């Protein structure tokens, strides 16, 4: 029972950064912008959150700074792709390369420092319930925030007027512009929301998951989050499910020895990446369905002709 509980708790910790990053990217993509720089925003969020927490001694400050750093990176991406109308694929790559370098530069002063264990929620009586208690009522605050974000984004996109406008911009920017919506401004907001979420995901890595700063610690999670958005067919709840599926795969590799599997560590570490490929293939196979699900203007440059 303890092993099962440990595995499940581990899954939550592994999945949460992916939930943050993928839900943010989902909103950006719904507005028609393909930001491939999630990995870069995440790693900058991780280093900024860590540095700010060490500097201020406050987790809240650290988390906020992490989100802000991610949003700043996203703003940079917006300036290039939305204002200067540069290629979104190339700019996303640039954001990732730049983010990895800059984070290493900032992080150098912080390597070797570790933070205390991130506090978990403790509600008297409820958290003490065996098994269910720690799992449902004993997580850290960011886990609950990630769930709230998924619910909030789901509600925003389908139930509010602003969400409808955001989707309209992503489906047909010419028409949205024609009606009079500020396409570029809306996209800036969506992209920066995505950046803030990626920053939160990064903050989770460096504050909760490890909790220390390691160069390149995002280890491709930003890219996995991008794949999750496709996997989720741009639906928030499915992104959540996908993130937990991947969290499960990651944890499987950690606990495999306890489960009696005799596979080399390196081979097991390949699992999340291979699973991403398999998932992409399964979901992309149906061309028609992909076309229907994906925002029509995804990745297209918008220039206001009038």
């Amino acid at each position, binding site marked *: 029972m303890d092993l099962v509980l440990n595995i499940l708790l581990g899954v939550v910790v592994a999945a949460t950064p992916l939930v943050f990053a993928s839900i943010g990217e989902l909103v950006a993509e719904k507005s028609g912008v393909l930001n*491939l720089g999630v990995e870069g925003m995440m790693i900058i969020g991780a280093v900024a959150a860590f540095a700010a927490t060490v500097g201020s001694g406050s987790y809240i400050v650290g988390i906020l700074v992490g989100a802000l750093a991610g949003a700043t990176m996203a703003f*940079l991406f917006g*300036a*290039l792709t939305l204002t*200067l*109308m*540069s*290629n979104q*694929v*190339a*700019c996303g*790559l*640039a954001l990732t*390369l*730049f*983010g*990895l*370098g*800059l*984070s*290493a*530069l900032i992080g*150098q002063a912080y390597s070797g420092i570790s933070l205390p264990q991130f506090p978990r929620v403790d509600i008297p009586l409820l958290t003490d319930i065996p098994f269910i208690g720690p799992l449902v009522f004993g997580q850290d605050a960011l886990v609950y925030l990630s769930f709230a974000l998924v619910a909030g984004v789901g509600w925003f996109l389908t139930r509010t007027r602003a969400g409808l406008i955001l989707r309209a911009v992503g489906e047909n920017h010419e028409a949205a*512009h*024609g*009606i*009079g919506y500020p396409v570029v401004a809306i996209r800036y907001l969506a992209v920066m929301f995505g950046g803030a979420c990626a920053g939160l995901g990064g903050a989770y890595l460096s504050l909760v998951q490890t909790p220390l700063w390691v*160069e390149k610690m995002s*280890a*491709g999670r930003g*890219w*996995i989050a*991008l*794949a999750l958005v*496709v996997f989720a067919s741009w639906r928030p709840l499915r992104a959540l499910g996908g993130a937990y599926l991947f969290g499960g795969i990651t944890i499987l590799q950690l606990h495999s020895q306890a489960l009696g599997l005799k596979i*080399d560590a*390196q*081979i097991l*570490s*390949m699992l999340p*990446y*291979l699973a*991403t*490929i398999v998932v*992409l*293939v399964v979901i*992309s*196979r149906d*061309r028609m369905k*992909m076309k229907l699900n994906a925002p029509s203007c995804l990745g297209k440059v918008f*220039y206001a002709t*009038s």
Partner: protein
Amino acid sequence: MFRLVPRKEPNRAMLYATPFLAVALTIVAGFLLFGALGKDPLHALFLIFLKPLTDFNSLAEMLVKATPLVLIATGLAIGFRAGVWNIGAEGQFTIGAITGGSVALAAYPDGGPLLLPLMAVAGALGGMAWAAIPAFLRTRFNASEILVSLMLVYVATLLLSFLVHGALRDPEGFNFPESRLFQEDAHVPALIPDTRAHIGFLVALFAVAAAYVYLERLILGFQVKVLGQAPRAARFAGYSEKRIVWTCFMISGALAGVAGLFEAAGPVGQLVPSLPVGYGFTAIIVAFLGRLHPVGILFAGLLMALTYIGGETAQIEMSLPSATTSVFQGMLLFFLLATDVLVNFRVARTAKPLATPSGAAPKLKPAE
């Protein structure tokens, strides 16, 4: 206020000017960055951009670094032109090193004049095989080649680590995760005696020339360009997208694989887990900086190699963080993409209604 007005055709002068503009902006930003780090900016920039050019050994090292960059970027550029995004060259590089290096290790301790060519072929085939995965999944299952090729980078790195911990480990190496040092005949011959510059650079030059001919003179190269610039036109003309995707991946995979083999059999001399150092990613910057043109890539590769060498010198002499070089390279790509707007747009002053009675009438906002 200013606004951007689309040009009727891309401005050729800007096409050539923007890489220089981007380099200039990067130097300015670097100046500020070093100032912020509390280092003497002028001295740092001197060490990075000028010092290596004054020293024979550094010039030779530049060729060592430029070789993989130019090889990989040349292949990538062909794909980027067609809108085929192979961003997993780092993985193909690693696999090329594994397959090519395995040939040497299998033949050990035998050599012979045929060994190195065989290794090169094996490296190219390895890179092609690894690139075939995203090509197949894209053409057959419509899966994003960007994400698949990138995921395979992590898999390739882990595979290399797995192999040098096991099957390819040096039997006399005290359990260190490294392969044997390659035998004499498996080393890439030096281009300049007593330096690490090797004949791989000549292969890179040959690849540049071949890519130039391919893109400028052959029909398939033309199709590649059309698919990138006007996918619909390409479809109407009956060009096979599948064939172009495959071609792009095979060329870039082969070149990345060969680059990996040259790295293993050249400056490194064995297989080690730390073999992939990011050339596959830096090559993306090189490809863009070179305007996706083979000749441009040659110069961009040399410039990027210069920042590697100069960056190392600056790190040692001024105790700068080792990540400075990658920040520089990232900034360069940013500035390049930002200034790219000038190729297709011109900057115009927003006309004020009263100030320009005879000029273009101010555009009306659509009614809300």
